[in-house]
């Protein structure tokens, strides 16, 4: 039993080590970057009339004048002690803030991902009828959708659905746990904006994957055995296409986490995207660090899950 577990342990530990290295690299870059960013928290706190001396004094007080590596090490030390600190201005515990806002972003990201899943059955259908009308139409639609940058979608949708039609609220948020109906109402536009791109992307990848899979020999064998198309699609084509689809879903999640700030700040949704944007602008470095750390940890976890997914889906893969 133990011998069976060994390769898994090794595989997981190498992944963890890579994950930790990535984590260190990213968080360090963040420290370095934030120390380079113009102005400083002190400047922002003291306002327009503060003298350079006053700003320098406050910087010293906050320790912002220390070299980057020293600040990074002290941050890392705090992190190891489980102390993420409090937000610079509002003095909220960072852990709580980050988790609460991450929950918002996750909700949006997961809903957007769930919406984008409709791409898969559509892909299945069109891939099995390649170059028919639906296939061509869906492909064109998806190419066009992929060509519209999220910020354009956000501007257009918020104009159309919030300003002109007023179907959905322009900004705001209600917690899912407190008011699920209002929550649904508020997430609608952000989710729509985020999911359009994802749906198109997932559709394309899934379609290509299905087309590729349908050209495999074993599909020809299945067809030669006279198995019906729907049976072949679900029993022979779906699983082989899944690893690629899973990869895209993993990427989607990271894309949505990383790309959420345009959507979130436009719709004033209190998620981590907007938070990190405003934290960068206001030099709340502890908060920036915490969010980046969370993002990296999530990325690493997501990719580990994707790997795990591969292993579950593909019998040939033995976590390695």
């Amino acid at each position, binding site marked *: 039993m133990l011998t069976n577990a060994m390769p898994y342990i090794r595989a997981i530990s190498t992944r963890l080590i890579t994950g930790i290295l990535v984590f260190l690299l990213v968080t360090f870059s963040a420290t370095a970057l934030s120390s380079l960013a*113009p*102005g400083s*928290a002190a*400047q*922002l*706190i*003291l*306002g*327009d*009339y*503060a003298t*350079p001396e*006053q700003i320098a*004094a*406050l910087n010293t*007080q906050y320790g912002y004048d220390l070299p980057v590596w020293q600040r990074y090490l002290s941050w890392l030390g705090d992190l190891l002690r489980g102390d993420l600190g*409090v*937000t*610079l*201005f*509002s*003095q*909220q515990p960072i852990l709580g*803030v980050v988790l609460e806002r991450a929950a918002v972003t996750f909700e949006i990201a997961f809903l957007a991902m769930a919406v984008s899943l409709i791409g898969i059955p559509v892909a299945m259908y069109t891939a099995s009828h390649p170059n028919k009308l639906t296939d061509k139409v869906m492909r064109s639609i998806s190419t066009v959708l992929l060509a519209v940058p999220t910020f354009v979608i956000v*501007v257009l949708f*918020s*104009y159309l659905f*919030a*300003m002109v039609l*007023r179907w959905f*609220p*322009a*900004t*705001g948020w209600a917690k899912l746990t407190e008011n699920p109906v209002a929550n649904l109402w508020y997430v609608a536009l952000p989710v729509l904006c985020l999911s359009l791109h994802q749906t198109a992307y997932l559709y394309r990848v899934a379609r290509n994957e299905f087309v590729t899979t349908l050209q495999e020999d074993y599909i020809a064998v299945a067809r030669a055995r006279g198995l019906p198309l729907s049976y072949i699609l679900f029993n022979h084509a779906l699983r082989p296409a899944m690893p690629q689809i899973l990869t895209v879903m993993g990427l989607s999640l990271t894309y949505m986490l990383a790309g959420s700030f345009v959507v979130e*700040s*436009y*719709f*004033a949704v*209190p998620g981590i995207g*907007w*938070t990190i944007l*405003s*934290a960068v602008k*206001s030099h*709340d470095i502890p*908060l920036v660090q915490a969010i980046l750390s969370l993002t990296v940890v999530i990325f690493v976890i997501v990719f580990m899950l994707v790997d795990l997914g591969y292993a579950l889906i593909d019998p040939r893969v033995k976590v390695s």
Partner: protein
Amino acid sequence: QADEQAVSGGEMTIIAGSDIKSWDPAITSGTFPGGPMDQLDAVYGFLVYVDLEGKVQGGMAESLTSDDATVWTLKLRPDVKFTDGNPYDAEAVVYNWKRAANPDTLAPAQPFVSSWIDGVKIIDPLTIEITLPTPNRNFGSTLAQSSPFVASPAALEAAGTDKAAIKPVGAGAFLFESWDQGISLSFKRNPDYWDQPRPYLDTLKFAIIPETNSRISTVVQGGAQMMAGYPYQFGANAEAPSVTTHEIPIPGLYRAYFNQVAGTFTDHRAREAFYHAVDPARLMQAYTQLEGYVTPTNYFTQASPYYDPADVLPTYDPAKAQELFDALAADGKPFKIKLVSYSNSDLKRLTSYLQQVLTAYENVEVEVELVDQAMLKPQCQTQVNFDLCIDGGVLVANGAEPIISNMLKTGGVDNWGQYSSEAMDGFLNAANATMDQTEVKAAYANVQKVVAEDLPLYIFGSETRFLLLRDNTGGIVPSNGGILQKQYLYVCEDACAAE
């Protein structure tokens, strides 16, 4: 005040463009609606404030008066208490002033406060007498705008030197409830507020929404009661059902700074040429996308008691401008300037327009540099690295002080162009040294004369502030720079009757 139809209770959300950074009452900046002082005001309340006419009025204090501009008397209201139970008395006020005067506090108003802190005398718990080293007619308005907040000394003591640890304990209309950094602030009614039955609102919220369009849509949809902005941003939304606009008639100036110590604009002809070269009406139209702006003729606009039609700034005259440009080029001092501003979309438009207009002239070269908003002050004020530095928004001008001295006096904190003129300093001091309106007016007439001669600033527009609000919003009583007094705000059941 027009709060006969005020209703108690209810909740109001005001949209703010940015978050506050600290509860420190000594650290204040930006007297504009939706700015950080707006939010601190909810907790602390203004000690005194400048009303729409430019007069200093009692806020938390009863009055601040002086007969000779040198000795000032601050009268406090009886029985005002901080929400932690401590009295809002002379001791507390002086404690806050001393704290602001202490350089360790890093208060922006520190130079101002420390200049008179030694002359502060507590007469009785409700009376403070301030003797200024030099007479200053505008002491009251300066105090109102730069150091108006008084927090409970106990709360300040408790925080020590850590600004972030300061808890918001004031005697203002509202009690701090929660702050979700970067997202929203929420306050609830202070039941022990001195001016009962105010405040009317049970809950007051500030929502931070960065995008202008999103802000407007939110008000239009009823997601918030009001936002501050300019009519050009509102567009047709101002006519949306249940939405109105409200003007806060505090005139302010659009201005830009000429670099007076180095570069092209040290030559008077260059400044003059600049005035001649650009049509300010058109410039304002480019900036705000609205027509019909009246161009100010000098520092004081017609609405001001100090308005003087005698000395006017150069007017738009392209031919003359070209002449001057050519002359400068002939002297080997070609008109070659760097415009510095920050990258907000309105200023982008403004600078692009200026560049577009100027480059149409011969012998002119214009470079534009847009920096991060936080970098404008360091670049313009500290490094003086510009020819023309354009700051956004309007500065409240017609109440004169402290803004006019800040901008025009040698070493003034807003004097980014480093303009320095003995005559100007003298006239400004003279205007400050007396409480006699005719003397003040005479002194300001001289100031305008010097402005028209020296062209220390580029003044190109004046404007008042506007609010976009739901029509069920009442009790709009502006104070300093347009900040609404929170205790008057109320929400009506339906639309409020027109005020």
